[in-house]
């Protein structure tokens, strides 16, 4: 039985096609237009074509993410918390704490052994605890995101960033640049600040068992290190395709509900 999970994130559309409990195809599309409906249709059709499937082969399509209500062809919408917890638990069965940091939102989720979200807290207000904040700051430093993450790992300085808003934080970064602070130290300061905000949310739900980080920020090695330090944990488990975990969870829940 084939099921599909679509994660309509604020930056990109992720599609996972699941055959039983095996991923048949994972597909990502960055929408280049504002029409979320069309972006979802195109991402889904591209994923089906890549997997050699037709729409009629798919038993159920579930959607998650900020734009889940815009996926007209999805039979059900699932919250990011439920989908993320399910997907993380599938990849790491001992996972009890999920940290989800995407482009515009971050959240901490506590999960039980079955991958059911039992507690969550999110950053609902602004991007300062999410990936786009790091992206904006890397632009200010004229570094790619990869260079930005790698640069922060070369610093052992702790520079507090006080601004809570991306716009004001950028001013702080510019001030640091003008005071000839090395880029490495500024990069670490920014990622420490994001990690600190994310950590505050996770502490609200409590840190228990295996900690799994999902979402696009997994690709930023500097952020992972900053988060590990902020959470005071020995290790954080990182899935192979972190941005697809919520779409995977969605497809898994779709499969469960067909039985």
């Amino acid at each position: 039985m084939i099921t599909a999970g679509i994660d309509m994130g604020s930056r990109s559309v992720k599609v996972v096609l699941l055959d039983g409990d095996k991923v048949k195809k994972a597909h990502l599309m960055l929408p280049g237009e504002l029409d979320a409906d069309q972006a979802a249709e195109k991402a889904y059709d591209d994923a089906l074509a890549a997997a050699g499937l037709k729409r009629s082969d798919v038993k159920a399509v579930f959607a998650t993410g900020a734009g889940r209500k815009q996926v007209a062809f999805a039979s059900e919408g699932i919250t990011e918390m439920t989908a993320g917890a399910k997907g993380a638990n599938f990849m790491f069965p001992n996972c009890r704490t999920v940290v989800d940091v995407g482009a515009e939102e971050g959240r901490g989720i506590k999960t039980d052994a079955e991958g059911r979200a039992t507690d969550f807290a999110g950053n609902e207000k602004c991007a300062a605890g999410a990936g786009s904040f790091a992206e904006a700051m890397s632009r200010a430093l004229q570094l790619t995101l990869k260079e930005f993450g790698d640069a922060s790992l070369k610093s052992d300085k702790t520079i507090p960033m006080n601004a809570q808003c991306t716009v004001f934080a950028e001013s702080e970064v510019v001030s640091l640049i003008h005071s000839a602070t090395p880029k490495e130290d500024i990069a670490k300061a920014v990622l420490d600040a994001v990690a600190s905000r994310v950590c505050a949310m996770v502490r609200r739900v409590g840190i228990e068992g295996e900690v799994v980080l999902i979402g696009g920020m997994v690709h930023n090695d500097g952020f992972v290190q900053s988060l590990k330090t902020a959470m005071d944990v020995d290790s954080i488990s990182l899935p192979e395709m972190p941005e697809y975990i919520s779409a995977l969870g969605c497809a898994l829940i779709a499969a469960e509900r067909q039985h």
Partner: protein
Amino acid sequence: MIANYGYKDGSGEYYISIDTDKCIACAVGRACLDACPKQMFEVITDDYDDEVIWVKKPNCRTLAYDCADCKPASGYTAAALPCVAACTPGAIKHSW
């Protein structure tokens, strides 16, 4: 599930926690809906097909202002807040 709606910023931590397991079997007919002076709560069907309440999305970003009249400075104690007092199942809690 304990759902925390709100945010933390430089001015403080503003979260309303709703224990949806207690909220499902509400014995007082969702008294919180009318009790909140700002009408911030609404009933939704969650991912497990249970009817629970949540904080309306726009209010999640403005709790510091929306709940201003219900802060300790206005004479309320945590237990006497209108939404907390109306919620006899004890599902609603505030971070302040």
